[in-house]
């Protein structure tokens, strides 16, 4: 069984197609591995691998862990919120349906920050997820359960969602690959909405080839989501071995950014490696990126305050017991059902949209968004990719940033600008570094961003770089080594 679990999802797919391994044995090996979850990575597991409406008759693709933000017919879907406790949706999200149709069994639903609001997975109503590299640390968020499941050997691969970094940052903190596709590449139908102009589904995988395979299954136009367009030309597996002729832009603004010394060291070493592979490093300027966090923390909460208005205790989800009138029922249900961070963002969004403040906050943030997209366009006129560290630090301690919401938000500094511009970006593990406060070494992610719909070029470059880096450290053994 151990050997089966060593296979990448692509390797397993090939072995299943060639008849070298039994698809059912392979699936069952993963169902068993997932059952050993001691990271609180899963909120629900598909224990016999065949739950009702989401059952797969003839598996031929690796089983997958699904972030609990995707609706799954007849299986619980909570977005890690009390307000959706016990909810079983009447339909399945398009992304999940595509996986099932391709032949991928659903292993379970993974823990996350409530409604995808958070960068540490500590905002789940069902307890935090632990980082498999160091259980006293966070896995990142909001797709923390998906990232920890893949890194901790509880799933061969997973899907998550990324609104401002929620795939890339946990991938970085857990030492795996995470890709946020171009906005519109993957359907959002059945994906519980947080910030609709930013939310995008994407892969969390062991390596770049698996990310390509998974995105190839997920992407495509969907009649149920008018903003979905798919990736023109589709995707093939990456096979590039060098980076000759490619230009990688490093934002000049990085020099002034607060980045842990160990992270900066790994980042610099990766730039050298790009040059060794024949790539060119150039300086680019993203002068408005520093306002990314401000714009994001207006736009995303504003959209969230509107999207979350639907949780009112009437049609689905929980309802608080009250003696009073309808308004009192709404207010009590929402106050008991939502956690502290969700309330904070609803309040922030409602404030930014309220009469007298709309132009100063929301209107201005939308203009900053334009400026940031223009910065990237200008950069891409000169370079093929823009690169940064994915996160300014390695995984931080549980509870370390919960007292200061702003400090938590600033953690998204390098991932938010790409989200605002709608462009694809991947995080690949580039090495290990000591936390700023000392201790055993932890994974560091390297972020590569590309122009809209240039996923193929992005995956090809990430693959070449990944092969050269040869990151093979694993939780429990790589640390300190």
């Amino acid at each position, binding site marked *: 069984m151990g050997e089966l679990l060593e296979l990448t999802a692509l390797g397993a797919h090939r072995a299943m197609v060639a008849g070298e391994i039994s698809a059912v044995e392979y699936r069952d090996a993963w169902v068993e591995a997932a059952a050993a979850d001691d990271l609180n990575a899963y909120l629900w597991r598909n224990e016999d691998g065949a739950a009702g409406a989401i059952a797969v008759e003839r598996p031929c693709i690796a089983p997958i862990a699904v972030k609990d933000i995707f609706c799954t017919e007849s299986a619980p879907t909570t977005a890690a919120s009390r307000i959706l406790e016990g909810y079983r949706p009447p339909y399945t999200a398009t992304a999940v349906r595509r996986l099932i149709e391709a032949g991928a069994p659903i292993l379970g639903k993974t823990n996350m920050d409530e409604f995808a609001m958070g960068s540490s997975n500590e905002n789940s109503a069902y307890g935090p997820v632990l980082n498999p590299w160091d259980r006293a640390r966070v896995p990142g968020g909001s797709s923390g359960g998906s990232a920890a499941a893949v890194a901790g050997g509880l799933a061969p691969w997973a899907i998550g969602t990324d609104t401002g970094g929620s795939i890339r940052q946990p991938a970085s903190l857990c030492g795996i690959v995470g890709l946020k596709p171009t906005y519109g590449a993957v359907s959002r139908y059945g994906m519980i909405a947080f910030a609709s102009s930013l939310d995008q589904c994407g892969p969390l995988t062991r390596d770049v080839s698996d990310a390509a395979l998974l995105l190839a299954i997920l992407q495509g136009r969907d009649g149920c989501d008018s903003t979905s367009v798919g990736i023109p030309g589709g995707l093939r597996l990456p096979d590039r071995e060098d980076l000759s002729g490619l230009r990688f832009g490093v934002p000049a603004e990085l020099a002034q950014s607060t980045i842990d010394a160990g992270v900066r060291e790994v980042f610099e070493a990766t730039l050298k490696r790009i040059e060794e592979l024949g790539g060119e490093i150039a300086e680019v300027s993203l002068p408005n990126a520093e306002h990314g966090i401000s714009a994001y923390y207006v736009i995303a909460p504003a959209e969230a305050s509107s999207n979350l208005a639907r949780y009112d205790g009437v049609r689905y989800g*929980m309802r608080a017991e009250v003696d009073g009138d309808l308004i009192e029922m709404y207010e009590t249900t929402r*106050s008991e059902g939502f956690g502290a961070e969700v309330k904070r963002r609803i309040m922030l969004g409602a404030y930014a949209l309220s009469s007298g403040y709309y132009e100063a906050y929301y209107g201005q943030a939308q203009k900053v968004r334009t400026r940031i997209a223009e910065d990237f366009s200008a950069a891409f006129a000169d370079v093929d990719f823009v690169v940064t560290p994915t996160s300014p630090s390695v995984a931080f301690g549980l509870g370390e940033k919960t007292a200061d919401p702003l400090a938590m938000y600033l953690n998204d500094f390098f991932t938010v600008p790409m989200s605002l511009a709608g462009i694809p970006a991947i995080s690949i593990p580039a090495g290990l570094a000591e936390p700023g406060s000392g201790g055993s070494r932890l994974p560091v992610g390297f972020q590569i961003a590309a122009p809209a719909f240039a996923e193929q070029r992005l995956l090809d470059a990430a693959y070449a770089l990944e092969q050269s880096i040869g990151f093979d450290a694993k939780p429990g053994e790589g640390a300190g080594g």
Partner: protein
Amino acid sequence: MIEREQVLHVARLARLRLSEAEVERMAGELSGILEHVDRISELDLEDVKPTSHVIELENVLRPDEPRPSWPREVMLEQAPDPAEGAFRVPSPQAE
């Protein structure tokens, strides 16, 4: 700086009932976040077009033909208090 009264006003708009402790904490936290966010209100962006969506959106049309919608009983299955084929709610008018 966000005052207590503003917190209560926004909470009413958002249909949230906050405890005394939450109101106080929220005032401080929102003030801290908005102080950071306020930097963008100082930028000169007069001639910049706002972006509400990053991709070119086209209208997606389909023939206007009647088709079955969700069966009522399926939609009511998840309701906290279904009654007589509908969603039952407390009276909108307090006694």
